[in-house]
């Protein structure tokens, strides 16, 4: 196990470097630059701005300067938000998205797995069809539909909750973002759990357990749940990173100040350093949680060894 983790860490460094390189090249290949504006400024003015941000240097030099700074933990100044560095932008926005994401993830696990197991146990009966109908509805309700609907219902019509803001993460401000974030994931997880649980319940070892007369709830909880969770974990590993790094929709609809908006705006504004900084963050988190998933496999399935 220990050597497995060391191996993973060693592979992570070149992976992140490759990620930086590819993103860097792609970004500079996109037409326009961070300072392309509707109001075209005179050349001398543009030269001064570019010199200030090192954009006047050859591309390979910019690349090495950037990688050198990243190695020291400096992600550079934001080109769009001139009063901030990328480190500051990530420090202020990522905790908010992670906070919403962590709660969403908790709901996804509890409700997604719970409803999936329920549906599997009552296969083809009313609880199953209810859960599956709800899940299908949830899947087709992406957050860009869900978020405005929630606001319309709870903020505009009923006036129970504020329509947006963060205010230190107070409950009334984060309820709707969490629901909007979690819904489609809950639906997905419920569907995956259900089919995987049904399959597991048909396996020979479950039949053996039933033949021994073990109570049904014990069979489900003690024997069936662990193997049934393997596909769920495969799905949730990568999804987890997506959940905690937020969503542009959530940030825009609820003004949460999360990191999701920066990812999309960074690309639209050609904010090279911001988009690279977030790519690196998401890359590292993905590598980290893929490793976590692999470790979880060894626990869920004793046949897996590293």
């Amino acid at each position, binding site marked *: 196990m220990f050597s497995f983790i060391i191996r993973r860490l060693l592979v992570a460094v070149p992976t992140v470097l490759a990620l930086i390189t590819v993103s860097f090249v792609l970004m500079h290949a996109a*037409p326009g630059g961070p300072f392309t504006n509707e109001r075209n400024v005179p050349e001398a003015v543009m030269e001064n701005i570019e010199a200030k941000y090192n954009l006047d240097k050859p591309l390979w030099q910019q690349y090495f300067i950037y990688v050198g700074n990243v190695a020291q933990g400096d992600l550079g100044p934001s080109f769009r938000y001139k009063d901030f560095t990328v480190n500051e932008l990530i420090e202020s926005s990522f905790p908010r998205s992670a906070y919403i994401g962590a709660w969403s993830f908790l709901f996804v696990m509890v409700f997604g797995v719970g409803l999936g197991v329920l549906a599997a146990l009552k296969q083809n009966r009313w609880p199953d069809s209810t859960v599956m109908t709800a899940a299908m509805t949830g899947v087709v309700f992406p957050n860009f539909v869900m978020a405005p609907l929630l606001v319309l219902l709870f903020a505009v019509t009923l006036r129970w909750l504020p329509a947006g803001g*963060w205010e230190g*993460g107070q409950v009334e401000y984060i309820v709707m973002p969490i629901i909007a974030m979690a819904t489609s994931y809950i639906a997905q997880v419920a569907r995956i759990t259900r089919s995987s649980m049904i399959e597991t319940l048909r396996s020979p070892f479950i039949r053996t357990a039933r033949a021994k007369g073990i109570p049904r709830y014990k069979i489900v909880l*003690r024997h069936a749940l662990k193997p049934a969770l393997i596909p769920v974990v495969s799905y949730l590993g990568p999804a987890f990173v997506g959940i905690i790094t937020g969503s542009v929709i959530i940030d825009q609809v609820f003004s949460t100040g999360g990191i999701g908006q920066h990812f999309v705006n960074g690309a639209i504004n*050609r904010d090279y350093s911001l988009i690279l900084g977030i790519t690196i963050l998401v890359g590292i988190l993905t590598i980290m949680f893929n490793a976590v998933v692999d470790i979880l496999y060894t626990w869920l399935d004793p046949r897996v060894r590293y």
Partner: protein
Amino acid sequence: MTLINQQRKIVQRRGPSGSGIRHSVQGVVVLLVTLALAACSEEGEKKAGDEALAAADIRAPEARFQEHPESGERLARKQVLVRGNASEPASLDPQLVEDTVGGAIVVDLFEGLTRSGPDGDTEPALAKSWVSSDNNLTWTFHLREDGRWSDGTGVTAHDFVYGWRRAVDPKVGSNYAYYIESAGVANAGEIIAGEKPSETLGVRALDDFTLEVSLDQPITYLPDMTVHYTMFPAPRQAIEAHGADWTRPGNMVSNGAYLLHTWHLGEKLVAARNPFYREDDQTIIDRVVYVPIESASAELQRYASGELHMTSTVPVSQMARLKKERPAELVMAPSIATYMYTFNVNRPPFDDVRVRRALTYAIDRNIVVSYITRGEQMPAFSLTPPYVSGFDFRQPEYATWSQPERDEAARQELRKAGYTDDNPLEFELLYNTDESHKALAIVISQMWKEKLGASVTISNLEWKTFLSQKQAGNFGMARHGWKGDYNEASTFLTLLTSDSGNNDGGWSNPEYDQLLLEARSSKDPNPYYVRAEEILWQEFPVAPVYFNTTVALVSPMLKGYPENNARNIIYSKDMYITAD
């Protein structure tokens, strides 16, 4: 990773009961959540701070006025104005701001020599009076002596000198450096090009309260230009003490009616009354909260839920409904902005003026403004909007024709240019991806198709790609919007001079250039402007579509919103919130 192993041991030790498994499932959940939170462990302390600041906003002082000192209206107990503000500003540094959202905040935080009055006319602000030399090459501004920075120190002419020098300083790298140059301030061009030090800029303090500006090109409208934030003073003390971080709450020193209180990127920016401001005892709004909401429909929902006093815009798709449901709250202020299509005159078929004329004639502008934009925009047949202060607005002859007459003339022009049913006009119309631009492009291209038999391809590009194509002259016909930087016709007409950096269509006319050059120093530039417009009516470098309006929703409780300010400059200190 050791965490995981420990978790496993705990689970195993619980033994073979069913609840052990249940706990292990919970264990996984708790573990992953813990990891997620551990990844952002720094948040702990920060969040407490956030709450305190949020609480501070809520604890905004009770309003000082129970009723309005002049009108006697009953005022709300909390004078906290919440404004929708489209997006996060590029910067709060007056010399670095480059967008309307930043400008909206900066004009509350800072005060320049002049300001834009309720009707958009230039009024004195920190300058109580100004005189120009006979040749308009030297301007002297006399400053008020009661201007104060938010740290209590006095605002002097030296602060203006410092600010203007920053604007052109290559090291500061301001986008609006060209603004100082276009005002004709002596040596601005050389300083931007790095040929002279910024100390040589043609602006100096004769004493603490007298600012002298020397120009190398005469200009009659310098006071109008000083309304713009690029020409605001800058607080040397704060900039030298904090460097690039000087625009943060706590560091920033400003001289306007408000000072920066809190700034949570993507959530809100809060400004509080500046106790040192010279008219602070008359300022009614205590706190201003700017909420950056990029999606117009999300902003509308925030407004409908009662959390905003005013929006920055209104989704075009909702105009019809809002006109019915909230007619009293819908404000459609004229704006000094023109929506048009630019022809690339160096590329066939647009090198033929008859083609440009035909296409310009055939646009049915009434349909566009009544059924698509719906914001009481005015059909445009010329470049400079009528709302521009002091401008002698006239219209070309074809503006007085009926649309069928224009269509007939358009068909004749096109026939003369050699296009027939067998040889139809073919071209591409380029616009940047956006719902309203798309609607317009579809409808107008359909007009050309039906009336002129033209075969028009419309294509959209993502914003920056669109801009780089357009600026490289890589287009036939492209959407173009232009908003005036200052309230004087030259801000529009210089767009099409040969040396303009924004004349993407490449049209050039020596007489036109000469007229605008002469207008700069003329006591009454209007005859030059009228003549320049007349040239445009013959040459059609652009096809004007409509003069814009700024559409917003304004709460009935919010009073003092400048509905007639065509520059759309809104000073929070001029407004107040009534009790009901």
